[in-house]
Each structure stands twice: as structure tokens, then as C-alpha cells.
């Protein structure tokens, strides 16, 4: 019955005494979905849920949906899908079984629906019993004054799974927010390096380290910096090969120096 519902449930939304047309004038928002309404309608039959008339239930639901449409209440798709399914079920229940088509019989479909209602009902009762239990921090209590450590020598770095998942979700979301034009591959091309180096060469008076020729806008992240170094290095080799520049290195891994080739 309606008074079995947890607080907050629109109990009495379907008044059992009133006729169905009356009952339809209810707040559809109060229901969590078609199954929730069906369970409420089933309870209004005032019988054991196992003996509920599925045919009657289907008719009640269909009348409800028809009335909601007449009142121009916007119904979500799942309400209409359920209506279609119940209309089909109703036809199966009313018409003699058509053995040829091989589909489930009306009785089988009705049984499954009854089962689903029973299961939802069972979950609701279980939830009520769970929430009615004595609860930590309300009915029983943990130690209020855990013994404080006198001396904190080590550090336990803590993070929960939720932190981890949120962090990953955050990273992915950030990535998704980057405008498309920003997603150019972070590669400083050989052509760009060659042009830049060649243009800078005439201004070089003495040996200058190759690092000086790196473009500022390409040294902000390690990855971009690496790309700029690689391309500038290859560009320097190419200029030397063409006889336009000279390269010098004091020792392995020492800085590379470059100057224009004196004719």
C-alpha cells in the first residue's frame, strides 16, 4: 500500500478509491519512470503482488499515458516505449495464442513483467530495511578521540580511487577542451629551422652556439624544445654541407658552434 513507501515518495498520488480518470490527474514527475508507476498501480489493486492482474495493469498504464497525452504532458520516450510494449502484451493476453509466430506467449510476457515488479518491490523493501539499521555516527559511534601520534616521522601519501579516477577524467576533459587548431603536431620542421638559420647567418660575426638560434616560442616545453634542437642541428649540418657555414665542437657533447663561412 501507499503508506509502505519511503518518505518523499508521492504516496497517494494514485488515489485507490477514485476512479482511474481521477487518478490520472497526477504529477507524472513524481514517478521515477514507467516501472515505478506500474508498481504503484499494481499496489493499488490491493492484492498480493504475485496475483496482480497484468492485463488490468496494462490497461491502467495505457489509460494513464493516453490521458497524459490528452493533457499535453510531455512524456519521455521510455514512457511511450513501455506503452507500446504493454499494448502488445495486452493484445497477446486478449487474443488466442498464435502458435505459428514463435514469439513469447502473452502469459510468459506477463510473468516476466510481474517478476520485474516483484524484484523492484523487493529492492525497495530491502533499501528500507537497510536504511532503518543502526548506523555509524547516528546510532553507534567510533572512538571519538583516537590516540594522537606523538611524533610524525613518516609521511603516508594518501589518495583514494575516486581521486585517481577524477584526476584521469580531469586530464582527459582538459584535453578535450583544446581547440582543434591548437592540436598541431608539436614539431619544428627542418624547413622552418633551415630558413631561420640561413636568415640569421649573415648577422653572425664570430662563433656562436647553436642554442642561440633556437626560436623562443619553441622552447616552452621539453617536447617542443627537443624538436627545435633536432631540426636546428640538422639545418646547421645542411648549411655546412652547402658550404655556407662552418661548425665547430671542442669535444664530444660540448656545445656546437657555428659561423658563416668566410669566402
Amino acid at each position: 500500500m501507499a503508506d509502505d513507501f519511503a518518505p518523499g515518495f508521492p504516496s497517494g498520488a494514485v488515489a485507490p478509491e477514485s476512479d482511474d480518470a481521477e487518478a490520472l490527474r497526477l504529477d507524472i514527475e513524481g514517478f521515477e519512470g514507467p516501472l515505478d508507476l506500474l508498481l504503484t498501480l499494481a499496489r493499488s489493486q490491493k492484492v498480493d503482488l504475485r496475483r496482480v492482474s497484468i492485463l488490468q495493469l496494462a490497461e491502467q498504464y495505457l489509460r494513464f499515458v493516453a490521458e497524459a497525452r490528452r493533457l499535453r504532458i510531455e512524456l519521455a520516450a521510455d514512457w511511450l516505449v513501455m506503452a507500446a510494449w504493454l499494448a502488445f502484451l495486452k493484445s497477446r493476453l486478449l487474443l488466442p495464442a498464435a502458435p505459428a509466430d514463435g514469439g513469447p506467449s502473452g502469459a510468459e510476457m506477463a510473468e516476466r513483467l510481474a517478476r520485474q515488479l516483484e524484484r523492484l518491490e523487493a529492492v525497495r523493501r530491502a533499501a528500507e530495511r537497510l536504511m532503518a539499521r543502526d548506523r555509524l555516527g547516528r546510532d553507534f559511534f567510533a572512538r571519538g578521540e583516537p590516540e594522537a601520534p606523538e611524533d610524525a616521522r613518516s609521511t603516508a601519501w594518501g589518495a583514494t580511487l575516486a581521486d585517481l579516477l577524477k584526476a584521469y577524467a580531469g586530464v582527459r576533459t582538459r584535453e578535450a577542451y583544446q581547440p582543434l587548431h591548437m592540436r598541431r603536431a608539436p614539431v619544428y620542421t627542418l624547413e622552418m629551422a633551415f630558413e631561420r638559420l640561413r636568415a640569421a647567418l649573415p648577422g653572425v660575426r664570430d662563433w656562436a652556439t647553436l642554442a642561440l638560434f633556437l626560436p623562443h616560442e619553441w622552447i616552452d616545453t621539453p617536447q617542443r624544445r627537443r624538436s627545435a634542437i633536432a631540426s636546428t642541428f640538422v639545418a646547421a649540418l645542411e648549411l655546412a654541407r652547402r658550404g655556407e657555414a662552418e661548425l665547430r665542437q671542442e669535444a664530444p657533447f660540448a656545445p656546437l658552434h657555428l659561423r658563416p663561412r668566410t669566402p
Partner: protein
Amino acid sequence: MSDGDLDRLFDAPEPAEQERMVEALLFAAAEPMTLRMLAERMPAGSDPKAALERLAARYVGRGVELRRIGEAWAFRTAPDLGFLMRRDLVEHRKLSRAAIETLAIVAYHQPVTRAEIEEIRGVAVSKGTLDLLISLDWVRLGRRRQSPGRPVTYVTTDAFLDHFGLESARDLPGLRDLREAGLLADHAGGGAEPPRGDDDLFG
């Protein structure tokens, strides 16, 4: 230090002493402690399990009791005395009906996938519901189901057991009745399923 002293150092403490140690350790900790955590702190050769059993018997009927929570143990005040402490409670945030039902489904049907939760409730699980239960540390992710799509499953945590005063998920109220009524068995898929709402689904 004489040899005798050394020997004594490596003897496990007397049972009564071990009981005192477990009592002290559990009193000092707000969180439940497992047998392993206890054993790590107690002198070598101690038997925290036996000590726990004696200690639990000693606290039967007292104002605080020794409770088993999953694989761990903790002292908690006796539930009948809750009214004495309730005064300085911060009011619990009230869970929505959707959250309560989702929690119950996870608890009773675990491990359970999101699709199964939706099938039972007949509506999509709204965003934030599972998130809330996870951030309350009542629900965590379990193994992926070995079925097409390898969906993630949800299970309850030890903090859930602690909060609801349960020794294990097997002690959920009415669990046995539900199982005997066949209401926990996996729903066999078939073409005649009543539809479920899935306006919130992506896949």
C-alpha cells in the same frame, strides 16, 4: 642483558597480556583493524585472533562492544545508547531515493553492473548517483564482468559494512528471503523483456 632476559624477549606474551594489547590497539584506532594489522603491531608469536575472541566475550553487554566489520574489528558504542551521543551530530545529508535504491541494489546484487542496476530500477542511473556512493566510500569498483563489453561491476566496501553495523555482506537484512524467492538470481535475457528506460545511456 642476561640470556634469560633475551629468551623472555622472544616469548609471545601471556594470553591475558595479548588481550590487553588488542584492547589498547583497537581503542586507540578509530578505523577497524584487521588481524594482520594487529599482528604487525604485537610482539612476534602473538595470536590476535584468540585474543579478539576473549576480548569480544568480555565486552558483551557493555556500553561499547567489539564488532567485526568484514575482515576487521573495531570498538563501537552499543546501539541502544545512541540517544546519549546524538545531540552533537551534524545532521546527515539525506540520500535521495535513487541513491538509496542504487545502494541497496549494489549491496544485495553485488557484483552488479550499471546496466543491471538500471534493469532492476527500470530507469537510467543518473549521473552523480554512483559518484556519490563512491565518494561516501560505500561503493567501489569490482572486477570487470567477463561478458561482452567487459562491463565494470560495483561492490560495497568495508566502510559500508561499518556504517550499517554489518559483519559481512552476507548479513544484509532479508538477504536470505530474497535469495529464496529467486529475486537475486540474474535475470535471464529474452525477447519478452519489458523495456527499460535508457534515455541517459551512451551505448
